């Protein structure tokens, strides 16, 4: 495939073996070979075919080289199974932008323990082992006293990092623990896998604003996902929304006031924990506030970190599948994961932030190749979100039906 000075678009193409075979045969014909009379199972033709196959494979490497210098192109590289191909983007992000990929995190969530005994049960961290519907396990990270006939809210953490720790509401049960205890998760637990290529590329771009000491808006978006507690534990922030303070003459002053910056924060599971900081001096919002103060907040700016507001959204849908290879819980998990990817305030369309109606259908469709169609009744249109809103699935008001339609 002779190449002159060409376009980047051409450099990321991968010619097929047939393309190479045609090119080689054309060159041979120009050199005097009677290629049109060659039998396709003859020695010469077969040599050309085998070499063409090899050359086509080599162009996959060449495409990686060309794509590997650009964030979007490197992020778009895929493995044979359709998953993100990470090596080229990791090279670019690590050695040009100095932004390493965020590894998979251990899912964590609230868990309500009920005590059917006639006496209180005292739990220490690690006393409860729980399991989700897929067989992946969790260990209690906190403890306390479960009163007789009462309940206690504790925190459980997945034993394995990544999305295997995801569990829809009410699907995590106690596997091992003191007699007479049962438990359930009152909200979905969302596991966070290795940072996807698209998200890593976005952080690389946000890093540019972090080069300035002046507190550019995008710098906050860059540092927040890296926020840790004072002990170094990741806060798991995946989404941020920023509001600059200002005051318009003739209006009643409302915060944020001039000189203030409000940052709404959320994890994949929902709003960042703890109260708004300031005034809070403990909790996740405070930890993020103190982290950001260290990295990107100029002295004259008053930063406030607030938990994003949960906007509960019910979903009613019928999913038509060729074979019954998914269950309702899978659909809830897919929708929850999709909601978890929506930025705070929604996807901006002009001056309005929305939860795109079409994204819900896509999330369900992408669950399995056997999904033939998705009929979405609720929401019936794009859902408008406020600047502080993060969407969360309202499972109690939702209804998912799966119909096998071969």
């Amino acid at each position, binding site marked *: *495939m*002779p*190449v002159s*000075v*060409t*376009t*980047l*678009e051409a*450099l990321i193409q991968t010619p097929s073996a047939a393309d*190479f075979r045609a*090119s*080689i045969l054309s*060159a*041979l014909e120009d*050199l005097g*070979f009677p290629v049109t009379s060659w039998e396709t199972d003859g020695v*010469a033709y077969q040599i*050309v075919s085998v*070499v063409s196959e090899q*050359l086509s494979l*080599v*162009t996959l*490497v*060449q495409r990686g*080289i*060309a*794509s590997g*210098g*650009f*964030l*979007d192109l490197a992020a778009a590289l895929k493995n044979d199974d359709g998953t993100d191909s990470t090596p080229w983007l990791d090279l670019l992000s690590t050695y040009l932008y100095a932004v390493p990929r965020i590894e998979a995190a251990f899912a964590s969530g609230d868990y309500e323990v009920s005590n059917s005994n006639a006496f209180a049960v005292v739990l220490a961290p690690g006393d409860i082992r729980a399991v989700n519907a897929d067989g992946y396990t969790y260990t209690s990270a906190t403890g306390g006293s479960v009163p007789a006939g009462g309940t206690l809210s504790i925190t459980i953490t997945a034993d394995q990092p990544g999305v295997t720790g995801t569990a829809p509401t009410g699907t995590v049960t106690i596997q091992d623990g003191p007699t007479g205890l049962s438990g359930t998760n009152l909200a979905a637990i969302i596991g966070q896998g290795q940072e996807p290529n698209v998200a890593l590329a976005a952080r*690389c*771009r946000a890093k*540019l*604003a972090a*080069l*300035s000491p*002046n*507190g*550019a*808006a*995008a*710098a906050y978006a860059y540092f927040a996902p890296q926020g840790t507690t004072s002990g170094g534990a990741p806060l798991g922030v995946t989404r941020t929304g*920023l*509001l*600059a*303070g*200002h*005051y*318009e*003459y*003739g209006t009643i002053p409302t915060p944020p*006031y*001039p*000189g203030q*910056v409000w940052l709404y924060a959320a994890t994949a599971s929902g709003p960042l924990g703890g109260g708004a900081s300031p005034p809070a001096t403990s909790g996740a919002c405070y930890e993020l506030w103190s982290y950001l103060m260290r990295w990107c907040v*100029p002295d*004259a*700016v008053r930063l406030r970190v607030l938990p994003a507001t949960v906007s509960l959204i019910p979903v009613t849908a019928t999913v038509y599948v060729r074979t019954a290879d998914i269950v309702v819980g899978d659909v809830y998990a897919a929708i929850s994961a999709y909601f978890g990817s929506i930025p705070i305030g929604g996807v901006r369309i002009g*001056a309005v932030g929305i939860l795109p109606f079409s994204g819900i259908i896509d999330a369900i469709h992408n669950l399995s190749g056997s999904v033939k169609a998705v009929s979405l009744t609720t929401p019936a249109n794009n859902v408008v979100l406020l600047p502080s809103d993060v969407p969360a699935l309202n499972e109690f008001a939702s209804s998912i039906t799966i119909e096998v339609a071969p």
Partner: protein
Amino acid sequence: MSFRDEIRTISPPWLQDGYGERLLYALALQVDAIAEAARQGVRARAPGAEGTPSDALLQIGRDRLIVRGKYESNATYSARLTRAFEAWQRAASLEGMMRALQSLLRDADTQVRAITWWALWALIPSWEAPVAYEWGWQDAWSWGWPGPGDNPPTYWDWGQVYVVIYPTTPGQWEQATLGAGLTLGSGAWSVGVAEPPEVVQAARLVADQWRSAATRVRVIISWTSDWPSHPLGAASTYQQADETWATNHTVVGGTAVPSRYLGAAYLDPVG
């Protein structure tokens, strides 16, 4: 040395001429093509390097968050991309944001001014000229621009920064008004300014990317080169940027004039 040449030298004598030589030549030709593509693939990431494909500049610009100006040549844009990391070190400064907007809309020597809510007037009079700073206000009740921050004599949108882009050639930012043959969606004009919507949107995007997190920015495209001018200029320059700063009119020389200057297009604020 190409693979086409090299393959002959490493072949046994009976493949160095005749059909054998030609067969290997045709195969090595493909390897040369792949090697050339790999070489260009590496060079593509270097803006301005010899042989960089022109469409690679678009990708580099996306990676470095440098929006290409409508009138910008490959050479000028490549130079800006090369200095992108240096430029980003000035993000969130008044000058950094002004220069980013100046670059976006540059066709000659676009003049850019910024006015902060605490009465600082900054001007970049021409391409790469240093920023000229002034601080001032009129002690008159009809004065509609910001006053000193600690003792405001008049009204303004606290926390907001205005960036004004002036025309460098007559008619560059020609006023586009609906009617007289111009309808919504017709031609390549946005409402209020004779530029396509993507140019106007790019100006807001750049302002948002380069602003400080603590400020809200409104970009104003002025159709005239003399408004707003010096903070201590003539009374006719008292007219304000928009109606958020004051009531809908002020009195100049005993005559009511609109608060919003009618010779400019006001883009929605970002932040």
